[in-house]
């Protein structure tokens, strides 16, 4: 069960090798989390992460392998995850996603569509499968990792940005639909976080390391905020970004 601070005892991560998500879960394990299910694509990466969480004190860590290129598997993944968690899950962290290389995607129709499948279509299918589970269990919390890149898409990564914009918009309505059932839904909008996903890329403005990003997110998960910005000052930056005229926006360094 979640306690008065919203600290979960059981957590499911979809995208179970995401560095940000794992760093968040580590912190949750240090508080109240005992049961973790890590679901992702890379079995050895999941096993490694699972062992690390066990070492940090988690009582039960299970892994579940799936590929987000096939939305029809989403229902099965959710069913299995609940089974592995022992029937109920307090927090579902949705961290499925790839960045893609925009230069290649510019001329790769299949690649662009595949990125949408992984980053948007699959998570949407999974969240839809999740809905009835959470309503039946009578409580729960879903946190979806979107991105500042979805707030206003940029030339440099617009395919990625658009997938996140879609996920963000879907999550807003999803949140409203679950409110009457006591299920809390939050959107996490991180800025540029230095991880393996962003390896080799030049730092964008307001970049953070994984640790501080996870600290901000964990704090946000306990708050009533509908959106968690990481770092928090991105909230103000986003306001400016949204209101810049297109001519100026396109001149921003990318």
């Amino acid at each position: 069960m979640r306690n008065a601070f919203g600290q979960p005892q059981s957590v499911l991560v979809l995208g179970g090798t995401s560095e940000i998500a794992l760093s968040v879960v580590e912190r949750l394990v240090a508080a109240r989390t005992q049961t973790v299910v890590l679901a992702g694509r890379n079995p050895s990466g999941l096993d490694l992460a699972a062992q690390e969480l066990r070492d940090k004190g988690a009582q039960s860590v299970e892994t579940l392998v799936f590929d987000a290129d096939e939305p029809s598997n989403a229902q099965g993944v959710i069913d299995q995850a609940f089974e592995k968690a022992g029937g109920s899950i307090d927090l579902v962290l949705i961290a499925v996603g790839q960045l893609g290389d925009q230069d290649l995607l510019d001329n790769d129709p299949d690649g662009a569509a595949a990125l949408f499948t992984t980053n948007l279509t699959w998570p949407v299918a999974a969240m839809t499968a999740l809905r009835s589970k959470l309503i039946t269990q009578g409580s729960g919390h879903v946190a979806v990792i979107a991105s500042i890149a979805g707030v206003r898409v940029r030339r440099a990564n617009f395919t990625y940005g658009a997938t996140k914009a879609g996920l963000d918009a879907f999550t807003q309505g999803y949140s409203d639909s679950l409110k009457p059932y006591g299920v809390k839904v939050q959107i996490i909008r991180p800025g540029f976080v230095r991880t393996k996903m962003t390896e080799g890329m030049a730092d964008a403005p307001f970049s953070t390391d994984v640790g501080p990003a996870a600290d901000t997110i964990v704090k946000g998960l306990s708050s009533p905020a509908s959106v968690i910005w990481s770092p928090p000052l991105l909230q103000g930056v986003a306001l400016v970004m949204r209101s810049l005229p297109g001519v100026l926006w396109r001149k921003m360094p990318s």
Partner: protein
Amino acid sequence: MSNHQELLTGWGNTAPSLADVVRPRNEEEVTTDLQNAPGSLIARGLGRSYGDAAQCAGGTVLSNRGLWNLTPIDPLTGLVTVGAGVSLDELVSISIPAGWFIPVTPGTRQVTIGGAIAADIHGKNHHVDGSFMNHVRSIRLATPTGTLTITPESEPELFWATAGAMGLTGVVIDATVQMIPIETSYISVDTERFPNLDATMAAMASGDDDYRYSVAWVDCMTAGASMGRGVITRGDHAPKSMLEGKQTRHPLSPPASTKLAVPFTPPSGLLNRLSIKAFNEAWFRKSPKKRDGEIQSLGTFFHPLDGVDWWNRLHGHRGFLQYQFVVSDAHGDVVTKAIELLSSQKVPSFLAVLKRFGPHNPGPLSFPMKGWTLALDIPIGPPQLAGVLDQLDLMVGEAGGRLYLAKDSRLSPQQFRAMYPQLGEFERIRKTIDPQGLLASDLSRRLGIS
């Protein structure tokens, strides 16, 4: 959402969960509800426990408010048989005019008999009279394996397991309670102010036994030499001879009902460190340095907050919690350390209440035990709060103390086990009446009570 589903929280307005609510009106309907529950079930009274004790996410919550039988109080013995859904407020409104008072009075009258038994509530007289179950003579209890009447003589194990069991041994249908005789509905009150915590605790340790009722309010927001300055109020039921003027005309008048209500939930943060500090300051200053023999009505003495309905809403959308622990006399220093920790970590606390308890009763999960109990009302919000309270849990646990489940909303299963060494015994008794574990609440799941 089906029309009998409700999103429920405790008094602290935290961790809501959805459940099917059933409202049985008698024993037969309770039995049917127990049999028909598709999943887990827990009883609920007026929702005055602070955390998740009266919630059952995805299951059934049985409102006890339809269990409303009330036989007249036996004028010779003071015994009364009351439905589990009757509130203490409703009971005293008929008992006081007849010259009887409830044996244990918590800080609000808005709790039901079922809730009073389930939490084995204590009042300002614990050091003299013990807790609620010490005054219960028999209980009609509906369990998943049958309904039975339990007394301390006929079913000592189940009877005492039910004390503080937070509903996990079954649904109380009604109970026979030993009331106490009173000549008037007034208390003769002595009030005294002390400059710091040591002085407050010393005065309580030496003087409490001279009074039936005693409690101290302690200021946790003032650091330095005045840390823990306190106001002790102590009293006894006033005999008729002490009344004057208007009071003599109606020596036995029931408490007036609620006057004010907080109609909506203001934004969180209305009660913040500054406003709480100012409140504590004002409370301390308005209290007399020393005043003896003041005649106060029962309502004023016991329930100053019942004058404002739904005052919990003042804490805003994030809700609040109460942290109440008890430690033995030998570990009274934990009280000091707790207040020091909160103050150094800048955690605001509103109305800290300090009391002395008498001995523990045989209930394996009953909270009170001989020593000191401190209750702190804390708004949710400060990011450091969760960690600070975890630290406090360790201090309390290491000192052999424990937290009060009726107030808890955040304890970990590990610390809970350490604090309640008789848990194993409780779980063994529980298995005999609920082998399938049908009775469960958000609290029992959170704390891992099987």
